[in-house]
């Protein structure tokens, strides 16, 4: 079946089997370029290695029908290249040695990006529990989550400081 999506800001037309998952269409081709940041890890919506944004909300693309994305916007980490918040998160994960094998990192970053964007819009700063809750769908077998949470906490604190400075300037 024909599926039209806005992938990373560009309209794309996919030919996909009716039972295809969004993950398989994004990752396996034959559509080029393949979105290699979207990883296959469990296919049950548990590990989060395939997390992408569907209309700005995080989803596990392995348990979402490709057809479900018809007419919607799909964003992968490739589409957030250069986005200041994503860049800050990537830098923080790297600086905090929170990237080990890196297989879960893009999914984790998409989840954190969504959390911090939502918090910034709401004018809140996520605490440890909110960060862990946001990451609970991204299984990582390497880090024990200590350094990823520390990295996210650091970015959240920076955002809060920037927010305060902006409020002060007004």
């Amino acid at each position, binding site marked *: 079946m024909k599926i039209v999506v806005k992938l990373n800001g560009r309209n794309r037309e996919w030919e996909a089997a009716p*039972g*295809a*998952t969004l993950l398989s269409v994004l990752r396996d081709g034959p559509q080029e370029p393949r979105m290699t940041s979207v990883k296959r890890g469990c296919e049950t*919506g548990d590990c*989060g290695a395939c997390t992408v944004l569907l209309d700005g909300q995080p*989803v*596990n693309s392995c*348990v979402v029908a490709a057809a*479900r994305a018809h007419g919607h916007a799909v964003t992968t980490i490739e589409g957030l290249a250069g986005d200041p918040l994503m860049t800050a998160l990537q830098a923080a994960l790297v600086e905090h040695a929170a990237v080990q094998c890196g297989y879960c990192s893009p999914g984790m970053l998409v989840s954190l990006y969504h959390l911090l964007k939502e918090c910034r819009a709401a004018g809140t700063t996520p605490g440890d529990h909110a960060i862990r809750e946001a990451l*609970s769908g991204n299984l990582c077998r390497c880090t024990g989550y200590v350094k990823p949470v520390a990295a996210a906490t650091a970015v959240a604190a920076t955002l809060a400081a920037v927010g305060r400075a902006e409020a002060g300037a007004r």
Partner: protein
Amino acid sequence: MWELKEYRIAGSIGEAVAMMRRGPGKGVYIAGGTDLFLFPPACDYVVDINHVGMSNIARTPDGDLFIGAAATLHDIATCPLVTGFAGGLVSAAAAHCGNRPVRTTATIGGNLCNALPSADLAPALLALDAVCYIADEDSQESLPLEEFFTGPRRTVLDGRLLVGIALSAASGGWRAAARRLTRSAEDIALVQVAVALEIDGDRVGAARIALGSVAPVPMRAMLAEALVEGELIANLDPDRLADAAAIAAGECEPIDDHRASAEYRREMVGVLTRRLLASVLAGSTDTSPGTDNEGGAA
């Protein structure tokens, strides 16, 4: 990869049911689809109901809460209409279901229509006397949620479409709390208990005790409820609550599986029911595992 022949997208409720009835072969409704991709059912086509206007959450003029079957678990977890209803019992249940990305697309309708004994929203909804609205091609009917489940993975639907769930305005004022017992933080529940009590001055009005993962279908422990319903609060001492809890444990029909034994599940129905009754009577609804209130006043 799921060997599916056709993905049908419905534009209205009537069209959805018509598409389902049309055949050939077997069809399944799909909204979020998360559960369907876990264990793809043998079917020839799916009918996507995301575009039929069933994702609304609203209060009716007389104060009832209506949740469309295609409302996502995330919306239910965060919508102020739900978080403010009966102590947020239903939104808390939604918030504990899966993980954040799953909750973006998974829906209340999917959770109920899959009819797993462990359906996460079922105990909370049963405890608030939820009513199901079901559409056929040219008719609609409603029935209590207790009558919706007919067995593991079986419902009354038979090709009809679950349109939504309604909770009466009265139940929105009930005091309620729930608890699910798991092996790890995010897990299929071993045991679920939801308790809702209508507090009417010095007396309990309606009392609901709903159980999940401990019977072929989510269920109410009505004999236990009867021990509490209409009672003077002063009479509901720890012994009485323990009696009610023991009766609830007797009412469930758990099985042994690789996650837990029937014996443990039954015992835990007793423990959790007793604690939840105590904490709800004491006015506390934060019963997350390992917290102060969770032990109950007993």
